[in-house]
């Protein structure tokens, strides 16, 4: 599971109002290499919940030198875009789980795939 996807995921259990962001408890993390595309990264940045991204990066111990608040002129700052590219698309959670901040319900992650299947009555 890449952190870009994690930034989009919420708990869709019935009755949960604050199911975002899901807390990451990772036991295995991998860093791959992916081709850098500046256009895509700068288009996705406005869609992101920046604070949730920084928090997720911290949980994985990958926060490195990402600023805690979004810098204003990021489109032209290639170094910044590369850092964001790395954290969004190159860092992957392979094993672990996602925990709902409101209910505590856990969604396990296995082989990089989070299991979002709900139980009866959820």
């Amino acid at each position, binding site marked *: 599971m890449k952190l870009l996807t994690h930034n989009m*995921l919420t*708990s869709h259990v019935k009755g949960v109002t604050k199911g975002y962001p899901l807390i990451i408890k990772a036991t295995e993390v991998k860093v791959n290499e992916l081709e850098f595309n500046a256009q895509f990264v700068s288009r996705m940045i406005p*869609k992101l919940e920046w604070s949730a991204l920084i928090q997720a990066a911290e949980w994985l111990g990958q926060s490195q030198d990402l600023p805690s608040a979004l810098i204003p002129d990021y489109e032209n700052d290639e170094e910044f875009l590369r850092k964001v590219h790395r954290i969004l*698309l190159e860092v992957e959670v392979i094993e672990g789980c996602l925990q709902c901040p409101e209910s505590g319900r856990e969604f396990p992650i296995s082989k*990089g795939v989070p299991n979002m299947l709900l139980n009866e009555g959820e």
Partner: protein
Amino acid sequence: MCLKHIACKNKIIVVTALLSGSKFQFYNEQEAKKYSQNSRMIEIQTQMSERAVELLSLPEDQPCYLLDVGCGSGLSGDYLSEAGHYWVGVDISTAMLDVALQRDVEGDLLLGDMGEGLPFRPGMFDGCISISALQWLCNADKKTHSPPKRLYRFFSTLYSSLARGARAVFQIYPENSEQLELITAQAMKAGFTGGMVVDYPNSSKAKKFFLCLFAGVSGVLPKGLCSESTDRGVSNQAQFTAQRSRFKNMKGKSVKKSKDWIMEKKERRRRQGKDVRADTKYTARHRKPRF
């Protein structure tokens, strides 16, 4: 249904899957492998993915963030990656997702049931495609499941997950018109506009159905493909809008007190031989309340 394309020897397994539709009868390891290694299957799925992306009408030369519902072993997802897009795939079958992992797909995969709703924040995706997956929602595998409810939960969460003006394209093989009506009714209820695009409507082999839904903005429905010598009379589009026709001709009769109703009543009385005023330009004219 994609099952049509699998060779005859698999028909028995395939037919049981069709009939029961249970979560556990979705593709298991054996079927998942066969599905992904069959070269004809790969060719067809790739072609349908290509057409679906074409119908999405995404801005040119721009990498987009897309959702692939029922991504399975990633055959359609591979096409998305090749077109330069980033994608997230959702599927209910662990076996199919395992094959996708083995094939090292570039998109991010999620194990989930689309009938339970999509677990995303609002407005995230630039578009959504789904190849041969929507029909699974029309089967009720448990007594507690209601297909319309599941369809609605899927469509309403999809509607919110899409950015404004984004499209969702579903390639489907509709079993019958009731199934099609069920799907489109729930999609409209969720707020989508759009319609069916039919490619090659006159060829039973090449005919393909694509349900094109627009989120937030009413677009012009793309034209279906057709071979050169088609009958012009065959329409290959069916447009539906968010307009609801209320009270129009309920029970086949005109609404009471409308002009139609008044004219019909006058005709009826004339046939009965009664004395009826002649029709003038003032007949059935709307009068002010104090009249």
